[in-house]
């Protein structure tokens, strides 16, 4: 009586919420049921096949099909992030790139006299002592005593040395003292290392100012390189102390550099150029920098419609030690890009017309996860010092500058200043050169980690240049050309121009075809799913429905069967204990349970006459029952009709 209300509740629950779990009582029944009813091919064959070999074969085949599906789908997934390249060509009005033009010589030598006179004097003296060169004047060597009396700063800072290669002794050419080389020797010209030449090698020594025993010797195979490098070090020291405004004054103005300008068939002048101060090249001028918000464009290709400039290169005012070539340097770049003129500039010859035909290509890569590039550079942990859009070059330079400020305490002259730092000079940082060289060595050997941090930009614009040179002005037009250009130059310059002071430059689009190379995702989700579907369908005629079925049958149903089994076991055990304790024996109940749990389990193998014959005859009923006529048996069993006698025989045995 006590159990009756609980039973009622469960009965009502079961009626209203018919969550009955799997209909099969055992795992093997469930599997059978699944195999017969699933939509996937293969499984059914396992069940309906007769004969052990055949069944095994089908199991193997089905398993291998499953394996193949898994393998192919994994392959598809792994290749999901691949890109296909497409090249499109568009003929259109093209934006004209920014063209930055610099004189190779950064500052007017005449104006720099007051800053460089000391250094030049020293350099000349050095040349005279080492090589007997004295600008065509008296070739008398001055005695060493003379040198000491002048007390040269520059040589004390960084002594120039002549190195005897094998004895590892160096002669200070200034003082004449011999000294032992300590520390490491760095060859700037690596070719000399293996030559075994007994020629003396020129170099200079850089020492750690705090710890004089730590020195590095830099040697050069040629005195030309040694002197230039040595000069440059001192030059940078001097320039680092001059404020920017003064430097801009010392360099060339737009009127100085640009004589005539012509763009797209129209005259242009210095207002179309923007000044840009480059630490190594002085004042450079950018045409079409886009600073005032407008970017010029060309709608016609050809040399007449591009930029035509005549540059005035004042060769007489060149610094003899700093630069040894004459001309201008130009770089074609995007308005947002920083012109790395010292790295990738094109040199322009004087007394010649240089025609530069451009072909525009734009490329775009896919960023993560397709390739390791960066869209804006925001994800790179290096501060962009250049105030321009990100590029690999900017990143590397910024990275080096940062390392320089961190380890040497001051910034290198050729790159922009980080906030709060100042350029190195040896009044304040006597140690910087040694530090710089050490750091540079590390940078080149990729020990600073800059190359690892910096990624290339995802999209970039490229102007492929075809450069050719013609003689200009031609012999017959030279006369009037130079006269008129001198007149153009105006009242400031009273002398007639020389043709080696002039360079003609033409920058134009060869054609207005813009090539756009872009990466596109080769796969979209839709295509991936269709590929999955193709694979599943090919091997097993499976679909998402099958996957759901599998989840349903193999996970939910099997689990609930196992649970039910456990529950029944537990119940049985509990009942047994209760029976033992109470002494009652509700045998009938157990039997009923059994019957209830297992009444409607349907044997998939349809009863045939043979199976019916093998059924144990019920003992208590005297009448053998006739097996039910099963008209459906015709369907499957006909296929195995020939097998029936075997089973029959077996049964009879």
């Amino acid at each position: 009586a006590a159990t009756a209300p609980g039973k009622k509740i469960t009965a009502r629950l079961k009626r209203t919420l018919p969550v009955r779990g799997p209909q099969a009582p055992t795992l093997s029944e469930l599997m059978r049921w699944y195999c017969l009813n699933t939509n996937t091919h293969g499984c059914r064959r396992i069940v309906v096949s007769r004969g052990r070999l055949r069944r095994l074969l089908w199991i193997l085949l089905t398993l291998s099909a499953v394996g193949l599906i898994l393998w192919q789908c994994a392959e598809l997934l792994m290749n999901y992030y691949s890109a296909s390249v497409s090249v499109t060509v568009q003929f259109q009005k093209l934006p004209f790139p920014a063209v930055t033009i610099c004189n190779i010589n950064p500052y007017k030598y005449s104006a720099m006299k007051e800053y460089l006179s000391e250094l030049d004097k020293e350099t000349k003296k050095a040349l005279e002592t080492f090589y007997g060169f004295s600008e065509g004047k008296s070739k008398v060597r001055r005695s060493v005593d003379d040198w000491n009396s002048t007390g040269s700063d520059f040589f004390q800072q960084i002594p120039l040395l002549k190195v005897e290669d094998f004895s590892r002794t160096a002669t200070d050419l200034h003082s004449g003292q011999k000294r032992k080389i300590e520390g490491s020797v760095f060859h700037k010209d690596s070719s000399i290392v293996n030559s075994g030449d007994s020629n003396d090698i020129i170099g200079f020594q850089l020492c750690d100012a705090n710890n004089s025993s730590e020195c590095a010797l830099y040697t050069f195979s040629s005195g030309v390189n040694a002197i230039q490098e040595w000069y440059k070090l001192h030059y940078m020291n001097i320039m680092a102390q001059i404020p920017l405004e003064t430097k801009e004054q010392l360099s060339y103005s737009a009127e100085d550099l640009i004589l005539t300008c012509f763009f797209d068939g129209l005259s242009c002048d210095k207002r179309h150029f923007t000044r840009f101060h480059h630490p190594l090249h002085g004042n450079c001028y950018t045409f079409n920098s886009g600073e005032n918000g407008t970017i010029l464009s060309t709608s016609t290709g050809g040399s007449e419609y591009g930029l035509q400039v005549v540059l005035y290169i004042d060769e007489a005012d060149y610094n003899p030690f700093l630069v040894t070539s004459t001309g201008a340097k130009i770089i074609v770049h995007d308005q947002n890009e920083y012109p790395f003129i010292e790295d990738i500039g094109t040199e322009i010859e004087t007394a010649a017309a240089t025609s530069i035909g451009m072909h525009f290509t734009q490329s775009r890569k896919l960023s993560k996860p397709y390739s390791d590039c960066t869209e804006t550079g925001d994800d790179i942990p290096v501060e962009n010092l250049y105030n321009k859009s990100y590029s690999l070059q900017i990143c590397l330079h910024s990275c080096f500058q940062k390392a320089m400020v961190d380890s040497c305490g001051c910034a290198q002259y050729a790159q922009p200043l980080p906030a709060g730092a100042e350029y190195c000079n040896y009044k304040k940082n006597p140690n910087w050169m040694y530090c710089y060289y050490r750091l540079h060595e590390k940078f080149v050997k990729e020990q600073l980690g800059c190359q690892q941090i910096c990624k290339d930009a995802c999209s970039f614009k490229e102007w492929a240049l075809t450069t050719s040179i013609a003689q200009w002005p031609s012999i017959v037009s030279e006369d009037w050309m130079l006269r008129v250009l001198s007149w153009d130059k105006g009242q400031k310059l009273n002398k007639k121009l020389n043709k080696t002071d002039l360079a003609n430059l033409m920058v134009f689009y060869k054609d207005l075809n813009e090539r756009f190379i872009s990466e596109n995702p080769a796969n979209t989700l839709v295509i991936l799913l269709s590929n999955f579907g193709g694979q599943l369908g090919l091997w097993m005629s499976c679909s998402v429905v099958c996957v759901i079925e599998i989840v349903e049958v193999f996970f939910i149903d099997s689990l609930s069967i196992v649970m039910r089994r456990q529950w029944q076991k537990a119940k049985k055990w509990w009942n047994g204990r209760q029976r033992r304790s109470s002494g009652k024996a509700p045998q009938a109940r157990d039997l009923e349970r059994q019957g209830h749990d297992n009444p409607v389990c349907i044997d998939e193998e349809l009863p045939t006459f043979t199976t019916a014959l093998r059924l144990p005859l019920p003992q208590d009923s005297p009448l053998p029952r006739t097996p039910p006529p099963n008209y459906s048996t015709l369907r499957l069993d006909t296929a195995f009709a020939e097998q029936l006698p075997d089973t029959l025989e077996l049964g009879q045995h």
Partner: protein
Amino acid sequence: MNLKKYLVRALHRLQKGPGYTYKELLVWYCDNTNTHGPKRIIKEGPKKKLIWFFLTLLFASLVFWQWGILINTYLSYNVTSSLSIGFKTMKFPAVTICNANPFKYSEVKPLLKELDRLIEAALERILQPGNGSENLSPSLNLELWNQIPLVLIDEHDKDNPVILDIFETNQTAVGNKTALDTETSGSQLPALCPQCSQQGSDNCTYRNFSSAAQAVSEWYILQSTSILSKVPLHERIRMGYQAEDMILACLYGAEPCNYKNFTQIYHPDHGNCYIFNWGMDEEALNSSNPGAEFGLKLILDISQQDYIPYLSSAAGARLMLHQQKSFPFLKDQGIYAMAGTETSIGVLVDELERMGYPYSDCTMNGSDVPVKNLYSQYNTSYSIQACLRSCFQNHMVEICGCGHYMFPLPEGVNYCNNEDSPGWAYCYSSLRSSIKQRQICIDSCKETCNDTQYKMTISMADWPSEASEDWIFHILSYERDMSTNVTLDRNGIIKLNIYFQEYNYRTISESAATTIVWLLSSLGGQFGFWMGGSVLCLIEFGEIIIDSLWITIINLIGWCKGLRQRRARYPDAPPTVSELVEAHTNLGFQPEPPGAVARAEALPPEPGTPPPNYDSLRVQPLDTLGPDSDAD
């Protein structure tokens, strides 16, 4: 009545399966279809039925959505590009060689004599403004001058610029000048070149120049164009450089060649040009080896002494590599070769092969471009440059009434000159700087689908060397002029090497990213992935629709005749599937509610005879048996 009977019979015969109501049909379809979802709807219990119904709907809508995406992708006609690089035997490019200067000065001097004297006098005035303003030589042809005079504009006073005609001492202050660039300032005396649309009228346009050198050469070009356009073509060809004078030596691979292997073409910018390997009359030459040894070697003479002083200031040869049977547009793609040097040009053929419409907007041969190609008179193929120039010339003829000297003429039109059409320079200038006109041309011209570019690696060296100079000049002079006098010098001689690089081609070819095969397999993949379906499933579905139409027809007829109980009238109809399905889905594994099993008989239930199943030939689940099949 009879009709309906007939129709029902027909339906019965047509499809044994589905019953005679929509529900039966639907159940039959769900049971028998090959798509995976529907079967489960009818096979499961009520709750799962609902789940499966929504799942099937969801999958069906997913399939249609993804199909939409796929078809869209297909219709966008994407392309993929493939790149191939290597060396193969290729046609050697056509090489066009011109002199930067169009005519020999010695030949054109009589024509340009007036002009030269004028410009010299003008330069004299500009450079030394103080002296000699009175003693103007009377022989100067001021008529030529007055058509397009050169003036100086004094812009010291910005609001009231003073215009000084170089040959007239009177200063005219122009209040309302319509200059192209009025804000020119800074430079004290910009040289201007006004171009009046009509002589004497006030409608003048001043073209400002920031430099006198530019103004002078621009003026000279306009004037000389006008003079030379009156000269007949054969006369112009005669005044230009002759092949035998210009091409001194030629060697192609190991085979000698000479000026006769070159095709002469008259180019308005550069006078006589000579094209090697143009492929017009003879087969194009192949080159099957990389390197300078197997390329073209030329020695040219540009005789710089004979240049027209004011026309071309740059001296050198102009050359261009282009495809066979295409017109060389030297101003666009040409490069210079400097006198006194040896120029080596390594060539890489950069090809782009595109698919054309509808994959990319390009033209195969220019026949679908709405611009009349004027360069077809040279028998050359279509190119975008030809199209743009033809477009410009057509506009020029339309607006100014005459053709520009630099471009070929349409039929029945003459070149512009100052006598016949005095306002042409103004008309030309305004047309040239008109952005609208350019945009029209850009929009109407299409690029070609097969774009070939010759990427050149150019290097130079001094040639001839000082040591070899003497004998080389001697031999070359002797060969050309049959005299022992040296007629050549450093300023005129050019050596050229043109050859294929080690990798001589880089071909980017397009292929369709989405073909119809791709589309079908993707569609099939999607259908299969979500529902396990195929084309046959679609046909099945169509069949069901036809069946339901049949049912509708029968129902309609039945309704019309007032027959409601058709099933009673036709006892020969087989038991319906819905009944069957009801029958066996109710059996299944579903245990009876425990309350119902109150009776305690342990006996197995009596196996009864199931109803005769005439439909059993159809595919149906096996678990149709009653609980009689006892497991041991």
